[in-house]
Protein backbone atom coordinates (compact mmCIF):
# COMPACT_ATOMS: atom_id res chain seq x y z
CA UNK A 1 0.00 0.00 0.00
CA UNK A 2 2.64 2.49 0.99
CA UNK A 3 4.39 2.62 -2.35
CA UNK A 4 1.24 4.02 -3.85
CA UNK A 5 1.64 7.32 -2.17
CA UNK A 6 5.37 7.91 -2.54
CA UNK A 7 6.88 10.36 -4.98
CA UNK A 8 6.11 9.83 -8.65
CA UNK A 9 7.55 6.55 -9.83
CA UNK A 10 8.16 8.05 -13.20
CA UNK A 11 11.19 9.91 -11.97
CA UNK A 12 13.02 6.75 -11.20
CA UNK A 13 14.20 5.50 -14.56
CA UNK A 14 15.95 8.76 -15.33
CA UNK A 15 17.66 9.17 -12.03
CA UNK A 16 20.65 6.87 -12.55
CA UNK A 17 21.64 8.75 -15.66
CA UNK A 18 21.41 12.09 -13.93
CA UNK A 19 23.30 11.04 -10.87
CA UNK A 20 26.17 9.25 -12.52
CA UNK A 21 26.54 11.58 -15.40
CA UNK A 22 27.15 8.52 -17.54
CA UNK A 23 24.76 8.49 -20.47
CA UNK A 24 25.20 5.07 -22.06
CA UNK A 25 24.51 2.24 -19.67
CA UNK A 26 22.27 4.19 -17.34
CA UNK A 27 19.96 5.38 -20.06
CA UNK A 28 19.87 1.97 -21.71
CA UNK A 29 18.99 0.38 -18.39
CA UNK A 30 16.30 2.95 -17.76
CA UNK A 31 14.83 2.38 -21.20
CA UNK A 32 14.89 -1.36 -20.68
CA UNK A 33 13.21 -1.07 -17.29
CA UNK A 34 10.58 1.25 -18.70
CA UNK A 35 9.97 -1.06 -21.63
CA UNK A 36 9.50 -4.06 -19.37
CA UNK A 37 7.22 -2.15 -17.06
CA UNK A 38 5.19 -0.88 -19.98
CA UNK A 39 4.68 -4.41 -21.21
CA UNK A 40 3.61 -5.48 -17.74
CA UNK A 41 1.42 -2.43 -17.54
CA UNK A 42 -0.33 -3.10 -20.82
CA UNK A 43 -0.98 -6.67 -19.79
CA UNK A 44 -2.33 -5.39 -16.52
CA UNK A 45 -4.60 -2.96 -18.30
CA UNK A 46 -5.89 -5.64 -20.62
CA UNK A 47 -6.62 -7.95 -17.74
CA UNK A 48 -8.41 -5.17 -15.94
CA UNK A 49 -6.69 -6.02 -12.73
CA UNK A 50 -9.10 -4.48 -10.29
CA UNK A 51 -11.96 -6.57 -11.54
CA UNK A 52 -10.27 -9.87 -12.11
CA UNK A 53 -7.19 -10.25 -9.95
CA UNK A 54 -9.04 -11.26 -6.84
CA UNK A 55 -8.31 -8.08 -4.95
CA UNK A 56 -11.33 -7.37 -2.79
CA UNK A 57 -13.42 -4.60 -4.32
CA UNK A 58 -15.72 -2.28 -2.48
CA UNK A 59 -18.80 -3.78 -0.86
CA UNK A 60 -21.77 -4.15 -3.18
CA UNK A 61 -25.50 -4.06 -2.65
CA UNK A 62 -27.24 -7.42 -2.77
CA UNK A 63 -27.26 -7.73 -6.56
CA UNK A 64 -24.97 -5.53 -8.58
CA UNK A 65 -26.20 -4.59 -12.02
CA UNK A 66 -29.77 -5.28 -11.13
CA UNK A 67 -31.85 -2.67 -9.39
CA UNK A 68 -32.22 -4.50 -6.12
CA UNK A 69 -34.94 -3.04 -4.03
CA UNK A 70 -34.87 -3.79 -0.38
CA UNK A 71 -37.55 -3.75 2.25
CA UNK A 72 -39.07 -0.30 2.33
CA UNK A 73 -41.79 0.52 -0.15
CA UNK A 74 -40.83 4.16 -0.16
CA UNK A 75 -38.57 3.95 -3.17
CA UNK A 76 -37.97 6.63 -5.74
CA UNK A 77 -40.71 7.18 -8.22
CA UNK A 78 -40.33 6.74 -11.92
CA UNK A 79 -43.00 9.07 -13.18
CA UNK A 80 -46.34 10.31 -11.99
CA UNK A 81 -49.06 7.75 -12.07
CA UNK A 82 -46.76 4.95 -13.14
CA UNK A 83 -45.88 1.82 -11.24
CA UNK A 84 -47.49 0.31 -8.20
CA UNK A 85 -45.56 1.57 -5.22
CA UNK A 86 -47.62 3.41 -2.64
CA UNK A 87 -45.52 6.57 -2.93
CA UNK A 88 -45.56 6.79 -6.68
CA UNK A 89 -46.35 10.10 -8.23
CA UNK A 90 -47.22 13.41 -6.77
CA UNK A 91 -50.60 12.40 -5.40
CA UNK A 92 -49.77 13.55 -1.92
CA UNK A 93 -52.31 12.10 0.44
CA UNK A 94 -51.26 8.49 0.01
CA UNK A 95 -47.82 8.81 1.53
CA UNK A 96 -48.74 9.37 5.15
CA UNK A 97 -50.00 5.86 5.74
CA UNK A 98 -47.08 4.10 4.12
CA UNK A 99 -44.36 5.69 6.19
CA UNK A 100 -45.42 6.05 9.79
CA UNK A 101 -42.05 7.52 10.78
CA UNK A 102 -42.23 10.21 8.16
CA UNK A 103 -43.37 13.03 10.41
CA UNK A 104 -40.69 15.71 10.41
CA UNK A 105 -43.33 18.37 10.83
CA UNK A 106 -46.64 19.45 9.55
CA UNK A 107 -47.41 19.14 5.91
CA UNK A 108 -48.52 22.32 4.26
CA UNK A 109 -51.16 22.76 1.62
CA UNK A 110 -51.22 20.45 -1.38
CA UNK A 111 -49.93 17.67 0.85
CA UNK A 112 -46.30 18.33 0.12
CA UNK A 113 -43.84 16.98 2.65
CA UNK A 114 -42.13 19.32 5.05
CA UNK A 115 -39.33 21.30 3.44
CA UNK A 116 -36.66 23.76 4.43
CA UNK A 117 -35.06 26.72 2.74
CA UNK A 118 -31.92 26.12 0.73
CA UNK A 119 -28.75 25.70 2.81
CA UNK A 120 -25.47 24.04 1.96
CA UNK A 121 -24.54 20.84 3.82
CA UNK A 122 -21.69 21.15 6.30
CA UNK A 123 -21.42 17.54 7.38
CA UNK A 124 -22.72 14.12 6.43
CA UNK A 125 -22.69 11.07 8.63
CA UNK A 126 -23.69 7.48 7.93
CA UNK A 127 -23.34 5.77 11.31
CA UNK A 128 -23.98 2.24 9.98
CA UNK A 129 -20.75 2.29 7.95
CA UNK A 130 -18.82 4.75 10.08
CA UNK A 131 -18.66 7.48 7.46
CA UNK A 132 -18.36 11.11 8.40
CA UNK A 133 -17.25 14.00 6.20
CA UNK A 134 -17.37 17.75 6.29
CA UNK A 135 -15.59 18.31 2.98
CA UNK A 136 -18.10 19.34 0.34
CA UNK A 137 -17.64 20.48 -3.24
CA UNK A 138 -20.19 21.51 -5.87
CA UNK A 139 -20.80 19.20 -8.83
CA UNK A 140 -22.05 20.69 -12.07
CA UNK A 141 -23.02 19.65 -15.55
CA UNK A 142 -20.09 19.73 -17.92
CA UNK A 143 -20.09 20.66 -21.56
CA UNK A 144 -20.61 17.03 -22.61
CA UNK A 145 -23.76 16.79 -20.47
CA UNK A 146 -22.25 14.57 -17.79
CA UNK A 147 -21.82 15.60 -14.18
CA UNK A 148 -18.43 16.50 -12.72
CA UNK A 149 -17.06 14.49 -9.82
CA UNK A 150 -15.13 15.49 -6.69
CA UNK A 151 -11.44 16.20 -7.18
CA UNK A 152 -10.32 13.92 -4.38
CA UNK A 153 -11.57 10.68 -2.92
CA UNK A 154 -12.24 12.29 0.46
CA UNK A 155 -14.65 14.98 -0.72
CA UNK A 156 -18.40 14.66 -1.09
CA UNK A 157 -19.93 16.48 -4.05
CA UNK A 158 -23.41 18.04 -4.14
CA UNK A 159 -25.12 18.42 -7.53
CA UNK A 160 -25.41 22.20 -7.63
CA UNK A 161 -28.41 22.47 -9.96
CA UNK A 162 -30.44 20.22 -7.69
CA UNK A 163 -31.94 20.83 -4.26
CA UNK A 164 -29.84 21.12 -1.13
CA UNK A 165 -30.67 18.45 1.48
CA UNK A 166 -33.98 19.37 3.12
CA UNK A 167 -35.47 21.10 0.08
CA UNK A 168 -38.05 19.25 -1.96
CA UNK A 169 -36.73 16.82 -4.52
CA UNK A 170 -33.64 14.65 -4.35
CA UNK A 171 -30.41 16.20 -3.10
CA UNK A 172 -27.76 14.25 -5.02
CA UNK A 173 -24.46 13.67 -3.25
CA UNK A 174 -21.62 11.75 -4.87
CA UNK A 175 -18.17 10.65 -3.77
CA UNK A 176 -15.43 8.39 -5.07
CA UNK A 177 -15.27 4.75 -4.05
CA UNK A 178 -11.47 4.78 -4.31
CA UNK A 179 -8.49 6.46 -5.95
CA UNK A 180 -6.93 5.36 -9.24
CA UNK A 181 -4.45 3.34 -7.23
CA UNK A 182 -7.14 1.69 -5.15
CA UNK A 183 -6.97 3.64 -1.90
CA UNK A 184 -10.50 3.58 -0.43
CA UNK A 185 -12.51 6.78 -0.83
CA UNK A 186 -15.08 8.27 1.53
CA UNK A 187 -17.92 6.20 0.01
CA UNK A 188 -15.93 2.95 -0.23
CA UNK A 189 -18.44 1.08 1.90
CA UNK A 190 -21.59 2.71 0.56
CA UNK A 191 -22.72 -0.65 -0.86
CA UNK A 192 -23.02 -1.93 2.72
CA UNK A 193 -25.75 0.55 3.56
CA UNK A 194 -29.16 -1.08 3.99
CA UNK A 195 -32.76 0.09 3.94
CA UNK A 196 -33.63 1.59 7.30
CA UNK A 197 -30.14 2.97 7.91
CA UNK A 198 -29.83 6.61 8.86
CA UNK A 199 -28.01 9.38 7.01
CA UNK A 200 -27.45 12.53 9.07
CA UNK A 201 -26.82 15.84 7.37
CA UNK A 202 -26.04 19.14 9.07
CA UNK A 203 -26.44 22.39 7.19
CA UNK A 204 -24.94 25.86 7.26
CA UNK A 205 -28.17 27.30 8.68
CA UNK A 206 -27.61 25.20 11.81
CA UNK A 207 -30.29 22.63 11.09
CA UNK A 208 -29.69 18.91 11.59
CA UNK A 209 -31.47 16.57 9.21
CA UNK A 210 -32.13 12.90 9.48
CA UNK A 211 -32.78 10.87 6.35
CA UNK A 212 -33.88 7.23 6.35
CA UNK A 213 -32.64 4.91 3.61
CA UNK A 214 -35.38 3.42 1.44
CA UNK A 215 -33.26 1.27 -0.80
CA UNK A 216 -29.74 0.61 -2.04
CA UNK A 217 -29.08 -0.63 -5.55
CA UNK A 218 -26.36 -0.96 -8.15
CA UNK A 219 -26.94 0.00 -11.76
CA UNK A 220 -24.75 -0.30 -14.81
CA UNK A 221 -23.57 3.19 -15.70
CA UNK A 222 -24.88 2.56 -19.20
CA UNK A 223 -28.32 2.08 -17.63
CA UNK A 224 -28.07 4.80 -15.02
CA UNK A 225 -31.53 5.55 -13.52
CA UNK A 226 -31.45 9.30 -14.20
CA UNK A 227 -35.11 9.81 -13.33
CA UNK A 228 -35.00 7.90 -10.07
CA UNK A 229 -31.81 9.67 -8.99
CA UNK A 230 -32.34 13.28 -10.07
CA UNK A 231 -36.10 13.53 -10.44
CA UNK A 232 -37.45 11.35 -7.69
CA UNK A 233 -40.39 13.09 -6.06
CA UNK A 234 -40.38 16.87 -5.92
CA UNK A 235 -43.11 16.86 -3.27
CA UNK A 236 -40.75 15.27 -0.74
CA UNK A 237 -37.33 16.04 0.67
CA UNK A 238 -35.14 13.21 -0.54
CA UNK A 239 -31.48 12.28 -0.68
CA UNK A 240 -29.32 10.25 -3.04
CA UNK A 241 -25.81 9.03 -2.35
CA UNK A 242 -23.85 7.81 -5.36
CA UNK A 243 -20.52 6.08 -5.83
CA UNK A 244 -18.92 3.50 -8.11
CA UNK A 245 -19.08 -0.26 -7.86
CA UNK A 246 -19.03 -3.56 -9.65
CA UNK A 247 -16.19 -4.90 -11.78
CA UNK A 248 -13.80 -2.62 -13.63
CA UNK A 249 -13.07 -2.64 -17.33
CA UNK A 250 -9.80 -2.46 -19.21
CA UNK A 251 -9.66 1.28 -18.62
CA UNK A 252 -9.97 0.79 -14.87
CA UNK A 253 -13.47 2.24 -14.97
CA UNK A 254 -16.06 0.70 -12.68
CA UNK A 255 -19.05 -0.75 -14.50
CA UNK A 256 -21.69 0.28 -11.98
CA UNK A 257 -22.94 3.10 -9.87
CA UNK A 258 -24.13 2.22 -6.39
CA UNK A 259 -27.03 4.44 -5.35
CA UNK A 260 -28.53 4.94 -1.88
CA UNK A 261 -32.08 6.36 -1.90
CA UNK A 262 -33.49 8.03 1.20
CA UNK A 263 -36.03 10.55 2.39
CA UNK A 264 -36.25 13.10 5.19
CA UNK A 265 -37.61 11.71 8.47
CA UNK A 266 -36.51 14.29 10.97
CA UNK A 267 -35.32 17.86 11.42
CA UNK A 268 -33.89 19.55 14.49
Amino acid at each position, binding site marked *: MSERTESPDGDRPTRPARRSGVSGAGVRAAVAVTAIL*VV*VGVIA*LVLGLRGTSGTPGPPQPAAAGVPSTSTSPAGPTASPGQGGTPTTGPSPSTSAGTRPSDEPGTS*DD*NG*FGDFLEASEPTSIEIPSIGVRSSHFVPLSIQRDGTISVP*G*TAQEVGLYDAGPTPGQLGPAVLAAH*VDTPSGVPGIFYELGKVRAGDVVKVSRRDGSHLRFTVDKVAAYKKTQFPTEAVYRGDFTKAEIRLVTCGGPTDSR*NEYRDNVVVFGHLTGTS
Partner: protein
Amino acid sequence: MRTTTTRIAGASLAAAAAMALSVGPAFAADTWVSANLKPVAGNGVDGSGTAMVDVQGNKITVTMAANGLLPDNPHAAHIHFGAEARHECPVLSDDKNGDGHLNTTEGGPAYGDIVVSLTKTGDTSPKSGLAIDRFSTAPGGKIAYQRGSIKVSSAVAKAISAGESVVVIHGVDYNKDGKYSGDTKSDLMPSLPTEATDPALCGALRVAPAGGMHTGGGLAADNLKTGGQNEALMLVGGGALLAAAGSGAFAARRARSRA
Protein backbone atom coordinates in the same frame (compact mmCIF):
# COMPACT_ATOMS: atom_id res chain seq x y z
CA MET B 1 5.40 2.86 -25.25
CA ARG B 2 3.83 3.28 -28.65
CA THR B 3 1.41 0.53 -27.77
CA THR B 4 0.39 2.34 -24.63
CA THR B 5 -0.13 5.59 -26.46
CA THR B 6 -2.33 3.93 -29.02
CA ARG B 7 -4.38 2.29 -26.34
CA ILE B 8 -4.89 5.55 -24.55
CA ALA B 9 -5.95 7.35 -27.71
CA GLY B 10 -8.34 4.53 -28.57
CA ALA B 11 -9.90 4.56 -25.13
CA SER B 12 -10.36 8.28 -25.40
CA LEU B 13 -12.27 7.98 -28.62
CA ALA B 14 -14.40 5.21 -27.19
CA ALA B 15 -15.23 7.38 -24.19
CA ALA B 16 -16.17 10.29 -26.42
CA ALA B 17 -18.45 8.06 -28.48
CA ALA B 18 -20.15 6.75 -25.34
CA MET B 19 -20.79 10.30 -24.13
CA ALA B 20 -22.26 11.33 -27.45
CA LEU B 21 -24.66 8.41 -27.22
CA SER B 22 -25.66 9.08 -23.65
CA VAL B 23 -26.48 12.73 -24.27
CA GLY B 24 -29.09 12.00 -26.90
CA PRO B 25 -32.10 10.78 -24.90
CA ALA B 26 -32.21 14.01 -22.88
CA PHE B 27 -33.87 15.68 -25.86
CA ALA B 28 -36.54 13.06 -26.37
CA ALA B 29 -40.14 14.23 -26.57
CA ASP B 30 -41.21 13.21 -23.08
CA THR B 31 -38.83 14.43 -20.47
CA TRP B 32 -38.55 16.55 -17.36
CA VAL B 33 -36.50 19.47 -16.15
CA SER B 34 -35.92 20.97 -12.72
CA ALA B 35 -34.83 24.22 -11.16
CA ASN B 36 -33.48 25.64 -7.94
CA LEU B 37 -35.32 28.86 -7.22
CA LYS B 38 -33.05 31.51 -5.75
CA PRO B 39 -33.50 35.15 -4.73
CA VAL B 40 -33.47 37.51 -7.70
CA ALA B 41 -30.43 39.78 -7.59
CA GLY B 42 -31.11 43.16 -6.01
CA ASN B 43 -34.61 42.35 -4.84
CA GLY B 44 -33.76 41.35 -1.29
CA VAL B 45 -35.87 38.23 -0.85
CA ASP B 46 -34.56 35.79 1.74
CA GLY B 47 -36.15 32.70 0.25
CA SER B 48 -35.65 29.71 -1.98
CA GLY B 49 -37.52 26.96 -3.73
CA THR B 50 -37.57 24.11 -6.19
CA ALA B 51 -39.50 23.39 -9.35
CA MET B 52 -39.87 20.37 -11.58
CA VAL B 53 -41.69 20.27 -14.87
CA ASP B 54 -42.75 17.06 -16.58
CA VAL B 55 -43.23 17.34 -20.30
CA GLN B 56 -45.50 14.83 -22.04
CA GLY B 57 -46.05 15.90 -25.60
CA ASN B 58 -47.84 19.24 -25.43
CA LYS B 59 -48.84 18.89 -21.80
CA ILE B 60 -46.80 19.73 -18.76
CA THR B 61 -47.11 19.03 -15.04
CA VAL B 62 -45.55 21.61 -12.76
CA THR B 63 -44.48 20.83 -9.19
CA MET B 64 -43.17 23.92 -7.42
CA ALA B 65 -42.40 24.86 -3.85
CA ALA B 66 -40.93 27.95 -2.27
CA ASN B 67 -40.58 29.68 1.04
CA GLY B 68 -39.39 33.00 2.38
CA LEU B 69 -41.98 34.94 0.36
CA LEU B 70 -44.13 37.83 1.59
CA PRO B 71 -46.95 35.94 3.36
CA ASP B 72 -50.62 36.28 2.52
CA ASN B 73 -50.17 38.30 -0.64
CA PRO B 74 -50.68 37.00 -4.17
CA HIS B 75 -47.54 35.87 -5.93
CA ALA B 76 -47.78 35.69 -9.71
CA ALA B 77 -45.65 32.83 -11.00
CA HIS B 78 -44.74 31.94 -14.55
CA ILE B 79 -42.58 29.94 -16.85
CA HIS B 80 -40.69 32.36 -19.06
CA PHE B 81 -38.98 31.73 -22.38
CA GLY B 82 -37.69 33.82 -25.24
CA ALA B 83 -35.88 32.58 -28.29
CA GLU B 84 -33.55 35.56 -28.00
CA ALA B 85 -33.27 35.38 -24.20
CA ARG B 86 -30.24 34.11 -22.33
CA HIS B 87 -32.31 31.32 -20.73
CA GLU B 88 -31.17 32.23 -17.25
CA CYS B 89 -32.02 34.39 -14.25
CA PRO B 90 -31.29 38.11 -14.43
CA VAL B 91 -28.21 39.64 -12.85
CA LEU B 92 -27.61 43.11 -11.45
CA SER B 93 -26.24 44.35 -14.77
CA ASP B 94 -29.76 43.89 -16.16
CA ASP B 95 -30.89 46.78 -13.93
CA LYS B 96 -31.32 49.27 -16.77
CA ASN B 97 -32.90 52.09 -14.75
CA GLY B 98 -30.23 51.80 -12.10
CA ASP B 99 -32.59 51.76 -9.10
CA GLY B 100 -30.85 48.75 -7.60
CA HIS B 101 -33.85 46.49 -8.14
CA LEU B 102 -34.81 44.32 -11.08
CA ASN B 103 -38.36 44.68 -12.34
CA THR B 104 -40.00 42.10 -14.57
CA THR B 105 -39.22 43.98 -17.77
CA GLU B 106 -35.56 44.34 -16.87
CA GLY B 107 -35.41 40.57 -16.47
CA GLY B 108 -36.66 40.05 -20.01
CA PRO B 109 -33.28 39.75 -21.73
CA ALA B 110 -32.41 36.98 -19.26
CA TYR B 111 -35.61 34.93 -19.23
CA GLY B 112 -37.85 36.17 -22.05
CA ASP B 113 -41.61 36.51 -22.03
CA ILE B 114 -44.26 34.69 -20.02
CA VAL B 115 -45.16 31.42 -21.78
CA VAL B 116 -47.11 29.71 -18.96
CA SER B 117 -48.99 31.29 -16.07
CA LEU B 118 -48.81 29.05 -13.01
CA THR B 119 -52.31 29.80 -11.82
CA LYS B 120 -54.14 27.59 -9.34
CA THR B 121 -57.30 27.45 -11.44
CA GLY B 122 -58.53 28.35 -14.90
CA ASP B 123 -56.48 29.64 -17.78
CA THR B 124 -52.72 29.10 -17.77
CA SER B 125 -51.85 31.07 -20.88
CA PRO B 126 -49.74 34.26 -20.85
CA LYS B 127 -53.05 36.16 -20.78
CA SER B 128 -53.39 35.17 -17.11
CA GLY B 129 -49.95 36.53 -16.28
CA LEU B 130 -51.37 39.02 -13.83
CA ALA B 131 -54.56 37.23 -12.80
CA ILE B 132 -53.69 38.09 -9.22
CA ASP B 133 -56.75 36.37 -7.74
CA ARG B 134 -55.73 32.99 -9.15
CA PHE B 135 -52.17 32.74 -7.84
CA SER B 136 -51.01 31.39 -4.49
CA THR B 137 -50.95 33.90 -1.65
CA ALA B 138 -48.09 32.09 0.08
CA PRO B 139 -49.58 31.48 3.54
CA GLY B 140 -46.71 31.54 5.99
CA GLY B 141 -44.46 32.66 3.14
CA LYS B 142 -44.74 29.21 1.60
CA ILE B 143 -45.96 28.00 -1.75
CA ALA B 144 -46.59 24.33 -2.49
CA TYR B 145 -47.97 24.21 -6.00
CA GLN B 146 -48.79 21.37 -8.30
CA ARG B 147 -50.82 21.43 -11.47
CA GLY B 148 -51.03 18.94 -14.32
CA SER B 149 -52.41 18.86 -17.84
CA ILE B 150 -51.22 22.37 -18.66
CA LYS B 151 -51.35 22.73 -22.42
CA VAL B 152 -48.45 24.42 -24.15
CA SER B 153 -47.46 24.94 -27.77
CA SER B 154 -45.00 22.59 -29.44
CA ALA B 155 -42.42 25.36 -29.48
CA VAL B 156 -42.81 25.96 -25.75
CA ALA B 157 -42.72 22.23 -24.98
CA LYS B 158 -39.53 21.97 -26.99
CA ALA B 159 -37.93 24.95 -25.25
CA ILE B 160 -38.81 23.59 -21.81
CA SER B 161 -37.51 20.13 -22.72
CA ALA B 162 -34.26 21.65 -23.97
CA GLY B 163 -33.65 23.33 -20.61
CA GLU B 164 -34.19 26.83 -21.95
CA SER B 165 -37.11 28.03 -19.82
CA VAL B 166 -37.06 29.83 -16.49
CA VAL B 167 -39.45 29.80 -13.52
CA VAL B 168 -40.09 33.16 -11.87
CA ILE B 169 -42.18 33.86 -8.76
CA HIS B 170 -43.08 37.53 -8.41
CA GLY B 171 -43.96 39.76 -5.47
CA VAL B 172 -41.50 41.43 -3.10
CA ASP B 173 -41.63 43.73 -0.09
CA TYR B 174 -38.79 46.23 -0.34
CA ASN B 175 -40.01 48.46 2.45
CA LYS B 176 -40.87 45.55 4.74
CA ASP B 177 -44.32 46.81 5.59
CA GLY B 178 -45.94 43.46 5.05
CA LYS B 179 -47.85 44.38 1.91
CA TYR B 180 -47.39 45.49 -1.68
CA SER B 181 -46.92 49.24 -1.44
CA GLY B 182 -44.69 52.14 -2.41
CA ASP B 183 -44.78 54.94 -4.94
CA THR B 184 -43.12 53.11 -7.79
CA LYS B 185 -45.71 51.75 -10.19
CA SER B 186 -45.50 48.31 -11.72
CA ASP B 187 -43.92 48.19 -15.16
CA LEU B 188 -46.57 45.61 -16.10
CA MET B 189 -49.69 47.10 -14.57
CA PRO B 190 -49.53 50.74 -13.42
CA SER B 191 -52.45 50.25 -11.06
CA LEU B 192 -50.22 48.05 -8.91
CA PRO B 193 -47.08 48.99 -7.01
CA THR B 194 -43.90 47.54 -8.51
CA GLU B 195 -43.54 45.40 -5.36
CA ALA B 196 -46.50 43.32 -6.54
CA THR B 197 -44.86 42.30 -9.80
CA ASP B 198 -41.09 42.51 -9.35
CA PRO B 199 -39.46 39.08 -9.51
CA ALA B 200 -38.75 37.51 -6.12
CA LEU B 201 -37.39 34.03 -6.85
CA CYS B 202 -36.00 32.66 -10.08
CA GLY B 203 -34.61 29.39 -11.36
CA ALA B 204 -33.69 28.06 -14.79
CA LEU B 205 -35.34 24.72 -15.58
CA ARG B 206 -32.44 22.49 -16.58
CA VAL B 207 -32.04 19.00 -18.00
CA ALA B 208 -30.51 16.51 -15.55
CA PRO B 209 -26.96 15.28 -16.09
CA ALA B 210 -26.60 12.54 -18.69
CA GLY B 211 -25.50 9.05 -17.80
CA GLY B 212 -23.78 7.63 -14.76
CA MET B 213 -21.16 9.13 -12.49
CA HIS B 214 -17.44 8.51 -12.75
CA THR B 215 -16.98 8.05 -9.07
CA GLY B 216 -14.31 5.40 -9.28
CA GLY B 217 -10.58 5.78 -9.33
CA GLY B 218 -10.68 5.04 -13.04
CA LEU B 219 -11.70 8.60 -13.73
CA ALA B 220 -8.32 10.10 -12.97
CA ALA B 221 -6.79 8.20 -15.86
CA ASP B 222 -9.68 9.14 -18.12
CA ASN B 223 -9.22 12.79 -17.29
CA LEU B 224 -5.55 12.59 -18.16
CA LYS B 225 -6.31 11.00 -21.46
CA THR B 226 -8.96 13.47 -22.49
CA GLY B 227 -7.22 16.55 -21.26
CA GLY B 228 -9.34 16.67 -18.15
CA GLN B 229 -11.92 19.21 -17.15
CA ASN B 230 -11.62 18.77 -13.46
CA GLU B 231 -8.68 20.90 -12.46
CA ALA B 232 -8.79 19.92 -8.83
CA LEU B 233 -8.50 16.30 -9.76
CA MET B 234 -5.60 17.07 -12.04
CA LEU B 235 -3.80 18.93 -9.31
CA VAL B 236 -4.41 16.63 -6.41
CA GLY B 237 -4.71 13.17 -7.86
CA GLY B 238 -3.35 13.57 -11.33
CA GLY B 239 -0.01 15.18 -10.64
CA ALA B 240 1.75 11.96 -9.83
CA LEU B 241 0.20 10.09 -12.73
CA LEU B 242 1.04 12.87 -15.12
CA ALA B 243 4.68 12.75 -14.12
CA ALA B 244 4.69 8.99 -14.55
CA ALA B 245 3.04 9.21 -17.95
CA GLY B 246 5.57 11.79 -19.07
CA SER B 247 8.46 9.44 -18.54
CA GLY B 248 6.75 6.47 -20.08
CA ALA B 249 6.22 4.64 -16.83
CA PHE B 250 2.50 5.39 -16.67
CA ALA B 251 1.38 1.86 -17.35
CA ALA B 252 4.09 0.47 -15.13
CA ARG B 253 2.95 2.50 -12.16
CA ARG B 254 -0.57 1.28 -12.55
CA ALA B 255 0.58 -2.28 -12.86
CA ARG B 256 2.46 -2.14 -9.61
CA SER B 257 -0.21 -0.32 -7.69
CA ARG B 258 -2.85 -2.81 -8.75
CA ALA B 259 -0.81 -5.88 -8.00
